[in-house]
């Protein structure tokens, strides 16, 4: 084995130009795979941070069955904020803050002096939040407010697109209309406090309403439909969710942030699938290069294989020799690609990368990073691929008859 390994590694550098080209293809391919994944890690890290700190919190509590009806938030599945069973939630170790919310749908109009100038009311989905407690759970919400906006008991925020359609400006009166939990339509007067920027595509008809105003509008004083819970460390979420479930019993349901923001989870899963597909294509192209190099090597060294067989090398040893050669080539290319890729990703991660997703108005700063587990998987797959793709040339060499191999046939 050591003798075969010595021959294999030396053979890799025998045709330096060919080895360089094949190894360079491996380096470029691995570099691309590591870089794409690294940038995606940064993007998904930013999406998760903006989701947790700007929308969901670490986990959420609702009345049982609430999320199943999430397309039309049921106000009847609400709860009293002074329910004693909720008191222990804030005391769970790792929980840093709890904020009540009401999700509801309604319409908004901004009346003008002349009735004919008043635009048609717009339907929207609103999140009613407590202006004092909410920043403790979702501090990034403040970053979603456009410059000069205000959000307090008397002011609400609307999506940028809605603001334009309603021809509204800061301080304008805003009339909210919404059916309460009994289905009766109620109204509430508030004021336009400013615009909400959009982080993800599709967040156009949204509003953020002060909780007290929403409770009056919906006849839900002292009640809410959602508790958003902030945690110290996202890694603790699964354990905290389990503890909260045990604490609250079957009346309530507890969901981690990614079970609530399923659209973002799906978005990231699609990104992962596309990145995996691209990586596989890169990997296949690289490995075809390795297979070609190994086939050329076998064809050029038929006599040498014959000589080795003449002095007693077995078929298995010939197979092993060419597999070791392919693996040596793979190690060179994979090591080079990983080194280059992780260095590039680390450099981007140190500096940060600011991007604005299409249809969004909030820029995200990504911090690309490489996960050691991913690097191990990429290296293992690339090396395994080198072995698999060189199997045909290696088998071809091992099946030569000594007499034919010595004659170069």
């Amino acid at each position, binding site marked *: 084995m*050591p*003798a075969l390994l*010595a*021959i294999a590694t*030396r*053979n890799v550098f*025998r045709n330096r130009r060919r080895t360089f080209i094949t190894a360079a293809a491996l380096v470029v391919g691995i570099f691309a795979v590591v870089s794409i994944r690294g940038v995606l890690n940064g993007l998904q890290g930013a999406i998760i941070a903006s989701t947790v700190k700007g929308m969901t919190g670490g986990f959420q509590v609702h009345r049982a069955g609430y999320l199943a009806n999430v397309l039309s938030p049921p106000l009847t599945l609400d709860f009293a904020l002074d329910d004693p069973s909720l008191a222990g939630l804030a005391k769970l170790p790792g929980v840093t803050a709890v904020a009540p919310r009401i999700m509801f749908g309604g319409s908004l109009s901004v009346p003008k002096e002349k009735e004919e100038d008043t635009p048609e009311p717009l339907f929207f989905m609103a999140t009613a939040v407590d202006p004092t407690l909410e920043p403790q759970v979702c501090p990034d919400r403040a970053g979603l407010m456009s410059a000069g906006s205000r959000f307090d008991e008397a002011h609400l925020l609307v999506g940028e697109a809605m603001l334009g359609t309603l021809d509204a400006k800061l301080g304008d009166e805003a009339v909210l209309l919404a059916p309460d939990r009994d289905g009766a339509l109620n109204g509430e007067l508030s004021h336009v406090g400013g615009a909400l920027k959009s982080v993800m595509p599709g967040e156009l008809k949204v509003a953020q309403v002060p909780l007290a105003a929403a409770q009056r509008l919906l006849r839900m004083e002292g009640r809410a439909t959602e508790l958003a819970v902030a945690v110290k460390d996202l890694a603790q979420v699964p354990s905290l969710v389990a503890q909260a479930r045990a604490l609250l019993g079957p009346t309530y349901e507890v969901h981690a942030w990614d079970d609530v923001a399923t659209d973002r989870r799906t978005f990231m899963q699609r990104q992962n699938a596309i990145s995996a597909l691209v990586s596989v294509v890169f990997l296949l192209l690289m490995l075809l290069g390795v297979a070609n190099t190994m086939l050329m090597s076998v064809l050029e060294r038929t*006599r*040498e294989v*014959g*000589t*080795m*067989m*003449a*002095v*007693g*090398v*077995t*078929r*298995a*040893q010939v197979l092993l020799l060419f597999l070791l050669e392919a693996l040596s080539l793979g190690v060179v290319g994979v090591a080079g690609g990983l080194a280059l890729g992780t260095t590039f990703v680390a450099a981007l991660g140190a500096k940060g990368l600011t991007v604005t997703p299409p249809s969004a108005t909030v820029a995200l700063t990504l911090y690309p990073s490489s996960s050691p587990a991913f690097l191990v998987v990429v290296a293992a797959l690339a090396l395994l691929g080198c072995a698999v793709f060189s199997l045909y040339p290696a088998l071809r060499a091992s099946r030569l*008859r*000594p*007499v034919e191999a*010595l004659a170069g046939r």
Partner: protein
Amino acid sequence: MSLIKLQGITKAYQLGKTQVPALKGIDLAVERGEFAVVMGPSGSGKTTLLNIIGLLDRADAGSYLLDGEELAGRDFNEMAGLRNKKIGFIFQSFNLIPVLNVIENIEFPCLLRREDKKLLRARVERVAEHVGLSHVLAHKPDELSGGQRQRVAIARALVTEPEIVLADEPTANLDSATSEQILDLMQRLNADSGVTFLFSTHDPRVMRRAKRVVQIADGRLVDGQDAAAANVAVLGAPPH
């Protein structure tokens, strides 16, 4: 007991749709310590015969006893093991492994049988010294002359202490002076250590030195004759 005993060996090659017979029933015995030559015109079957004796190819029919052991029907790995232990090869084109230096080329067959490298190294250096390669042990084959390369091949063939060394046209790629030196070396090894040599050659210099010449023509052995008679037949009477 003969070292090699062939009986009724036949071999045919398929060329397109035609079967071309290469050996048509060879009976041959080679004794230990022989320095023998198989000679014959091109296409007579001498290389095929050497390939079968060297277990590089299989006979279609017949019996092959090596050191009293029947070899017909052995699988590839068994044949590889037997080649490694009992047979040394010297080729016309030297057939060294280009990425290994002299000492690594010589020790390679022994490493295949997992010999201890430290103990082996001493033996390899002794063999290398014996064939006159002590000063080029670290050289790669492409840094050696033709004669030196053939010496490496001889050392590689001998280091496993085989029963027989098969040499296929060993002087064909060497100049006259180097050929004589290589033949001197092989003759000395045959005389000193009793290693059996079997050559396939056209080279009259080899035939002159052979103790026995086996003639093959059209896939059949010509009636056995001693070396002197064959030499006279092939080369004419030696000069007085």
